[in-house]
């Protein structure tokens, strides 16, 4: 049974089609979605989304957003979605430096903790990209 998967960013429809499995970077941990998954809504953290289809695997960088699983399939609304090969590293670097600046200017509190976690996610993505680039 195939899972209908749609990945959209504000700029474009990135992916739409039948796949076997999608691994989504959820805000509270990664989760895999197969066909017939229970309906759920989750927020995403900046991370790497893996699409497994008959033709192989595809890795896509997503920077935050939402995932919705319903009987119709999985819909991911990403703030930014770009395949690992095509992503502009400068965008991530810029977001990271913006976050760093905001963290430097912040008072201690839950808001600061959130920003620091966010920065960590970006760093993980960045490290992953550096890793694949060296292959």
């Amino acid at each position, binding site marked *: 049974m195939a899972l209908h998967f749609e990945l959209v960013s504000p700029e474009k429809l990135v992916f739409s089609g039948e796949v076997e499995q999608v691994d989504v970077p959820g805000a509270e941990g990664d989760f895999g979605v197969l066909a017939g998954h229970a309906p*759920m809504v989750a*927020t995403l953290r900046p991370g790497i989304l893996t699409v497994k289809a008959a033709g192989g695997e595809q890795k896509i960088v997503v920077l935050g957003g939402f995932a919705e699983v319903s009987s119709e399939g999985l819909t991911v609304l990403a703030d930014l979605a770009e395949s690992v090969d095509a992503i502009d590293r400068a965008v991530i670097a810029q977001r990271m430096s913006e976050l760093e600046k905001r963290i430097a200017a912040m008072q201690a509190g839950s808001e600061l903790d959130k920003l620091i976690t966010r920065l960590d996610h970006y760093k993980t993505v960045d490290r992953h990209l550096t890793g694949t680039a060296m292959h």
Partner: protein
Amino acid sequence: MASLKDMRVRIAATKATQKITKAMQMVAASKLRRAQAAAEAARPYAERMGKVLGSIAAAVAGSDAAPKLLAGTGGDKVHLLVVCTAERGLCGPFNSSIVRLAREKANALTAEGKEVKILCVGRKGAEQLRRLYGKLIIETVELRGVKQIGFEHADMIAKKIVALFEQGAFDVCTLFFSRFKSVIAQIPTAQQIIPPVFESPSHPSPASGGGLGRGSYEYEPEEEEILAELLPRNLSVQVFRALLENAASEQGARMSAMDNATRNAGEMIRKQTLTYNRTRQAMITKELIEIISGAEAL
């Protein structure tokens, strides 16, 4: 009667105007292609977002936990009209058709005894509305010098709307923009965004999920947390979409307006040249008659 020289100047002036309108038409045509692609690319996201939110809304409907951005404040005394127009004119009825729609709505609401507040996006709409509703305009956002509308512009406007909502400045918010249908058809549209109205009132997806009832969504993290993030985001997306649709519509409207203007200028040049040639011929004939009759008199 105008002298021949005056007429020549007139024709030259009309030709110069025609060149300008022709150039504007071509510029609009090339901008239109980009704007149209952007507007069409943004549609799936806005539609999916509406769909996702629609099914969540159906799931939480009726519960007290529904946040105000989703369920509304309960009242509808104060209406905020967000009127999105262009920064520039010379685009046919584009700006005035949006303003007219907003004006009709404002008049209808005032007649019902509701309070109306207006937030203008774009200089042209603000100028037209200021005359009639100067006191009702609470803010004007100008997007001058913005070449390509980005998500951050929409985000900024949406944040303003949310801030106003949280201050309790209004109960219902309606967005006015022009939906791009084709180059010759742009449809001025009013879309209620707070509380959001979903296209299909009986959304089937959560209920039809293998016999599971409504409210069967699992949330990760908590429902409130997700909705607190999803709802402002939905606003930004809807505003973003409205701005992009508007940008495409504006170029489309300008293109057909300038096409008309170019054709009219061509028609005017034809008429003026005809009059010019007739007058010139008449003068030559008159001079000839004078010479001949002068020669005969000798």
